[in-house]
């Protein structure tokens, strides 16, 4: 801001800085008392105990709630991070469950490996068949509407 733009304002501000404002002592103390009363803690008036002793002790639920919340969150993360049936069935990791995954599973089963896709607690040829059944399901594509 340049001086020539607001000469009057500048002059008035400079004059204000030099001018002494008299505040009577009583008014000053009254004002300070009111400020102290406003910001003072209410318990300080009724209690003489030290400040730390006046803090409330946390209740049991306050103590255990964060831990319980952490356990629940960890459980949810584990639950949703579990591989889905589709992810388990996509053996060649090409993003689609198709008959090639069924073929690979059948070969795994032949070698005594594989995974329990149909959740029957057994790893056998039925797991490969389950993948093939998943692969031919009509609901899994836009052609489902064509069929309706």
């Amino acid at each position, binding site marked *: 801001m340049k001086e020539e733009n607001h000469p009057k304002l500048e002059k008035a501000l400079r004059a204000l800085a030099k001018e002494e404002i008299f505040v009577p002592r009583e008014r000053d103390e009254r004002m300070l008392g009111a400020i102290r009363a406003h910001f003072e803690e209410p318990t300080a008036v009724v209690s003489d105990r030290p400040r730390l002793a006046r803090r409330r002790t946390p209740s049991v639920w306050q103590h255990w709630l964060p831990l319980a919340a952490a356990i629940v969150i960890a459980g949810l993360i584990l639950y949703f991070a579990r591989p889905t049936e589709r992810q388990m069935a996509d053996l060649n990791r090409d993003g689609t469950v*198709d*008959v090639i995954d*069924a073929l690979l599973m*059948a070969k795994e089963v032949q070698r005594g490996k594989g995974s329990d896709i149909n959740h029957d607690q057994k790893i056998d040829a039925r797991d490969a068949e389950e993948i*093939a059944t998943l692969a*031919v399901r*009509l609901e899994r594509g836009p052609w489902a509407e064509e*069929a*309706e």
Partner: protein
Amino acid sequence: MKYIRGVICWVLLVAFVETITAHGAFAVYEVYVDSGSKALAAYQVRIWDEEGVAKILSVEGGEPPAFQAPPFFDPKAIQKNVIKLAAFRVDASEQLPRGKVRVASLHVEIPESGARPRWRVVIEAAATADGRKIAVRASVFKKDEE
């Protein structure tokens, strides 16, 4: 007397034709997969009738021993004009078919008389015995029309 007999025969013939057309026509369509020189261990195709006139009734297996069993399909495709077929074999390459082979047959009903389905086939997957993807060609023909 001859005249009456002729009329009765004509009426019976008309009634027979009417009965046949009222129930629609039935046909068999054969699904072929051509894997060229490579051994076909697995295939997955999506087939649908663009005209929407055919209703799939049942699915039969194919010709080569490896694919004689009916392929996998969704039972919900029955009475519809779209189906996905898939089959796989874990046999050794030597026992798997090569070239153009009939892998399945579709038994369909065409309720509308004179209508003719127009089949479209999309290959969704095909692989050799070791699970490697291969490019194949697929086609659908009416039985005895290939």
